């Protein structure tokens, strides 16, 4: 299979997306009374705002995944990192305040959550880089540990797997619009990540560490350090995503079933594969998945007689379809491999 093929498919798929949007707009324009138009009517500024909030965990997981995998370490534990930071943010804010955190205490919770996620990523990095663990299985373990640990700790702290609700982070005025802090962080991080990867020497090291670690070693850059940086960044971004989900939108930790993160880390992985490791493309894909999620929430609010569980699977079905369509992506050629400096 040639490498050009996925990219062509991707463009094709994007084209289909544009066509669908155009068709829906036409329906709304010409048949304002049809049910389709009613659905299209959902799309307004409020809808976009809610989509952006839903994009936060997916896009941050995707950004993190890009840095880790580009540096040569496949991190499929992103879902687990989101769970850890979502839990930590609520737990810390709740415990230091005794139940009703102030805005300042919420921000402390946010910061500690990011730190917790980075520490977990550090553990994953040590296991993968020093002990040459199998990255896929270690990533799976990170997810399963988080899936057990967060509800376990919830029960220790609150006596049940769900936390009591807390306040969410206040919006602040940004020029003329009210801005949600995690959304703003995301809108800043995406271009910043793009810039870092494409226009800085750090970005070139990350690229080389995943594509040709030997060459990087030859020019005197420590491949191990670059890979640590990549994995720690995946922890940092996932931390922002998980805390952003918990403190920016939900205001509670929900530990039942697949937890409140509910597969968004996995969707994030698909988003960056679909976005071909480009932060901008990954953000676009995350936005697409989030808009489907927002659509199903809106349809439920409008009282459409469609069972919510059925609409709830739309994003997951879309991921499968997209993955089937994009198929194999061009991953960094040394990703998944261990590298030891100075060995021939």
């Amino acid at each position: 299979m040639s490498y050009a093929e996925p990219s062509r498919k991707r463009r094709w798929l994007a084209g289909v997306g544009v066509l669908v949007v155009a068709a829906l707009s036409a329906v709304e324009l010409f048949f304002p009374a049809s049910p389709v138009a009613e659905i299209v009517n959902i799309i307004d500024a409020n809808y976009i705002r809610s989509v952006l909030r839903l994009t936060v965990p997916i896009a941050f997981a995707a950004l993190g995944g890009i840095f880790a995998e580009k540096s040569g370490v496949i991190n499929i534990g992103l879902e687990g990192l989101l769970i850890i930071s979502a839990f930590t943010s609520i737990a810390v804010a709740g415990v230091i305040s005794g139940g009703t955190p102030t805005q300042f205490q919420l921000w402390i919770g946010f910061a500690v959550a990011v730190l917790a996620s980075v520490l977990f990523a550090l553990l994953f990095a040590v296991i993968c880089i020093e002990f040459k663990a199998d990255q896929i299985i270690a990533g799976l373990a990170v997810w399963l540990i988080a899936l057990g640990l967060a509800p376990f700790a919830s029960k220790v702290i609150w006596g049940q797997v769900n936390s009591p609700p807390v306040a969410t982070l206040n919006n602040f005025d940004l020029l003329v619009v009210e801005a949600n802090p995690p959304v703003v962080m995301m809108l800043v991080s995406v271009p910043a990540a793009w810039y870092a990867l494409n226009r800085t020497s750090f970005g070139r090291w990350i690229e080389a560490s995943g594509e040709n670690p030997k060459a990087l070693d030859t020019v005197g850059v420590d491949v191990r350090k670059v890979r640590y940086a990549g994995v720690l960044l995946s922890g940092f971004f996932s931390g922002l995503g998980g805390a952003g989900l918990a403190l920016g939108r939900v205001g509670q930790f929900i530990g039942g079933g697949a937890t409140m993160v509910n597969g968004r880390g996995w969707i994030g992985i698909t988003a960056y594969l679909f976005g071909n490791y480009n932060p901008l493309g990954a953000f676009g894909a995350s936005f697409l998945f989030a808009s489907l999620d927002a659509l199903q929430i809106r349809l439920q609010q409008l009282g459409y007689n469609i069972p919510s569980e059925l609409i709830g699977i739309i994003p997951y079905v879309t991921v499968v379809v997209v993955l089937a369509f994009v198929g194999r992506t061009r991953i960094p050629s040394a990703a998944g491999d261990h590298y030891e400096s100075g060995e021939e």
Partner: protein
Amino acid sequence: MSDRGPDDEADPNPDDSWQGRADRALERLVDASAVERILISLAALVLSVVVGALIILVSGWVATCQSPFFSASGVGSFCYDPISVYYVLFKGAVWPPYNVAITLKETTLLLFTGLSVAVAFRAGMFNIGTQGQLVLGALGTALAVLWVAPVVPAGVVGGLILIAVGLLVGALVGGLWGAIPGALKAYADANEVITTIMLNFVASGIAFTLVSEVFKDPESQTVQTRAIPGFAQLQPVFFDTTVFSMLALVGALALGGGIYWMLNGTSFGYDLRTSGVQPEAAEYGGVDSEKMMVSSMALSGALGGLGGAVYVLMVASRWRTGIPSLGFDGITVSILAGNNPLGVVPAALLFGALKTGSLAIEFQLSVPKQLVGVLRGLIILFIAMPEFFRMVGARFRFGDDRPSVATDGGAETTDGSDADDHGGDDR
């Protein structure tokens, strides 16, 4: 097997995909020699117990309780004593005697899901979707039995027919659901790790919707189907309980033996294993790798579906929400067992015991039962890093003079290069 130098590092190899990497990772696990596998599994268990004890201590320090087992001024009080937690965990698995039946019930179900994951692993596929295959298989079984029940005579004969129908439909539905990610990987190159996880979410959504909209028990508030008739349930033989049948355990053990024979004694099994370990060699040998991916995933899904069928026929006697995460536990069981169908038996027994014991620690010591979920993750984590144990072993001179061949697909070279990641099959 390989005389290629480290220069291959920069080679834009067509197989340098997620899948290619995962395949080679799998192969390293699959190829480990039996003794080393067992040692690594045991070491991983011991380490998980140690780390788990630390987690118990810390969480006991966080928790508040009436009578801490240990407290010191300046440090705080510790509510949970790790030793008594582990003691209750293991004692709770066998005492009172009724708990033996509960442990064996869990073991039986985990045998199916463990075998399901192991078969896929052997064929070079990560099946994380056993849970979804089990959920839909269970639904298929419940509906089929309810549908056929009115036309068969109540009694032993009718029961046998219903059980046979239920098992068949469960395996069929699970197999079809498992074949989807297999086909997506074979014909569209879609990564099965992600598709199977996504299909888990889709499966539970579909099952929930079908039951709540169409097949709901009208007399019940919760989302569940009507109960299957009593004579269609798997009958207990030794234990007087409604949740465990010796027949199911014997059947599951026989199935494990059958899978072992299938993998090691039949040409299909040989093709399956070669396409898992050396896909290119298998292709040269005339194996249709696409077909092999689909059929091995279908077989894996069928085993997951059988697990769902047994869950309905033995435990729940209906489809209901909140089916336990047997599929995810199956991943641990299989990895702990080195993906060997015979190794799955002790691994399933261990996890069955842990599951039962977790209820005891929650009931007797108020330690949350999710602790077992943490241990599950830790075990996988430690098994993922055989290198760690080898380093520890080398430091303490556990006779590790020979080159560590086994876990690296036999490609470890004496000059110590990282050739282990080019395990000789990637082209």
